[in-house]
């Protein structure tokens, strides 16, 4: 047992805390939302030590928080949340991660899974042809002016320049798909080079597109507000800012690592490199991060367009036109938000904003029920649609989890099952699989993840979000 594990104390039904006194460099406590079984998995890697490290950041307020899907990352744990207060509070590029605005978008098709019937495999296949995966990048290649517009305005640039997607899509995207203050000039030439030909591509790792069926409704009223009904077909898109975002993080972690001494900052992990929010480095990172976040929203927007075109080819143009965007949420981002009468910079690293009913920052048609949150499980299990709850504003800076959370390394997953065997198992379970790499498929095996039912149960018990619907996979296109 690590020192961090030993210091952990239960402070609520599903809330655990390491006091700030556990280490001399901790400025605030480290707080974990979990039940006993999840905690066992969390204790098995270095998640808690990394959470303690986050609690050392200058200007952090209240506590370093861990969602129930937390696992070991680099610098910040994945599933970590930290709010810092200007002017001395810092922004940490590693606290957002390399895949800036990695996130998920849910599309609802105007037909049930049974109506789709024998066309399920054809639709999954068509989606796999329409959205380049892995290292593929032959998609919507942008010239310099168009890329700059995307960096400034996100998917709105695609709607207005190319007629891709709709105003309704923009309205049903977190922050309307655009973070203010984005500055393409703060994004390096290298990042531009890596991003310009990657719009509309899913990438690799744990990114995917999944065709699903609404399996169960838990909250009929909220489900109706989200436009979801039992048996309906949906498509979940999980991807981020691709090489452009990765390069922005690389550039700014290196830059901030070089100015720590200037600001008198010492850190327990170099990957937490940071600078005051009001410093030139902090401001420029926020401008570059906003540009990369806008690129990520445009990326998922372009993929949603490709999905609609696939629906048109397999089901028909009316079905494509009736395919509605439920919402799009970011998982990796730092945002300036008001909490408790203060403006804070909330870092969410593998965590989802989950604002409750009444929030002015969510679409008008969801304002009575709360913001939709999507929790992907794993291939072969289930995903959840949640709604933000008031408890999230009180206890987690308006945040909930972002997925099931890994519990096993990629190499561990590959040791346990081969890609071909997993492919057969999923297909036997009636799930269509399209994945260019058996190795990549095995790394994402369902047993490599925590139990999504348990993760969602903790979120509900903690009052961070409530269950709205469960989605079962019909087919998966893996990056």
């Amino acid at each position, binding site marked *: 047992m690590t020192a961090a594990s030993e210091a952990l104390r239960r402070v609520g039904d599903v809330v655990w805390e390491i006091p700030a006194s556990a280490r001399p460099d901790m400025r605030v406590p480290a707080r974990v939302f979990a039940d006993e079984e999840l905690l066992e998995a969390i204790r098995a*890697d270095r*998640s808690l030590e990394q959470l303690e490290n986050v609690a050392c950041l200058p200007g952090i307020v209240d506590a370093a928080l861990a969602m129930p899907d937390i*696992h*070991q*990352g*680099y*610098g910040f744990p*994945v599933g970590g949340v930290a709010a810092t207060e200007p002017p001395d509070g810092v922004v940490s590029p*590693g606290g957002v*991660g*390399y*895949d800036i605005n990695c996130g998920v978008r849910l599309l609802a098709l105007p037909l049930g899974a049974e109506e789709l019937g024998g066309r399920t495999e054809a639709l999954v296949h068509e989606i796999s042809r329409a959205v380049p995966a*892995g*290292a*593929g990048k032959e998609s919507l290649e942008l010239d310099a002016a168009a890329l700059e517009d995307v960096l400034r305005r996100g998917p709105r640039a695609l709607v207005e320049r190319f007629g891709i997607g709709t105003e309704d899509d923009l309205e049903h995207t977190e922050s309307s798909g655009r973070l203010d203050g984005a500055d393409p000039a703060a994004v390096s030439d*290298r990042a531009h*080079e*890596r991003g310009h030909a990657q719009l509309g591509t899913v*990438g*690799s*790792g744990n990114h995917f597109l999944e065709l699903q069926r609404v399996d169960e409704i838990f909250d009929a009223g909220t489900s109706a507000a989200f436009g979801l009904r039992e048996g309906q077909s949906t498509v979940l898109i999980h991807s981020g800012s691709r*090489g452009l975002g*990765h*390069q922005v*993080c*690389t550039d700014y*972690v*290196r830059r901030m*690592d*070089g100015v720590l001494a200037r600001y008198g900052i010492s850190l327990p*992990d*170099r*990957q937490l*490199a940071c600078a005051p929010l009001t410093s030139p480095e902090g401001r420029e990172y926020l401008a570059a991060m906003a540009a990369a976040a806008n690129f990520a929203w445009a990326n998922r927007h372009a993929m949603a367009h490709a999905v609609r075109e696939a629906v048109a080819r397999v089901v028909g143009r009316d079905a494509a036109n009736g395919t509605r965007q439920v919402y799009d949420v970011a998982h990796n981002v730092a945002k300036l938000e008001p909490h408790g009468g203060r403006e804070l910079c909330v870092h969410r690293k593998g965590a989802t904003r989950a604002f409750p009913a009444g929030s002015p920052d969510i679409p008008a048609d969801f304002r009575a029920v709360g913001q939709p949150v999507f929790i992907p499980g794993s291939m072969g299990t289930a995903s959840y649609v949640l709604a933000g709850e008031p408890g999230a504003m009180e206890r987690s800076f308006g945040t909930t989890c972002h997925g099931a959370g*890994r*519990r*096993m*390394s*990629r*190499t*561990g997953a590959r040791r346990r099952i081969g890609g071909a065997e997993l492919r057969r198992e999923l297909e036997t379970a009636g799930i269509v699989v399209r994945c*260019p*790499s058996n*190795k*990549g498929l095995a790394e994402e095996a369902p047993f490599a993840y925590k139990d999504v039912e348990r993760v969602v149960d903790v979120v509900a018990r903690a009052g961070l979000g409530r269950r709205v619907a469960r989605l079962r996979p019909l087919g998966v296109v893996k990056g």
Partner: protein
Amino acid sequence: MPHRFVDHTGEVELHVEAASEEAVFAETLAAFAELVGRGGDGEHGRRTIELASPDRPTLLVDWVNELVYLAEVDGFLPGRVDELTLQGNRLRAVVGGRVGAAPANLVKAATYSGLELERREDGWHARLVLDV
């Protein structure tokens, strides 16, 4: 074993053992090549890489990030180090590989988390966590 991938819940943790610091850099390239694999044959190519960093461990991170960049933008997948010189905190290398082969897997970046590059009794050791 000159390099091995150690269990890490979220990412890939690389450990390298080598007789010299130069050999650590060459072996790290071999590990990178193993990780990204190759999606096709491509054509033979060579690239000259020149880097300057604040210190040697950072130079190792910059080395991998240069390989990430070349793979993604240039379609260059490294296969071997033909020449490699370290002078102070500068590196100059000539790398042979394939152009246009497309990686089978992607690496997002090398991180500073838990970064180690140090001399031990039996040679040089490096530890590097890669975001994949």
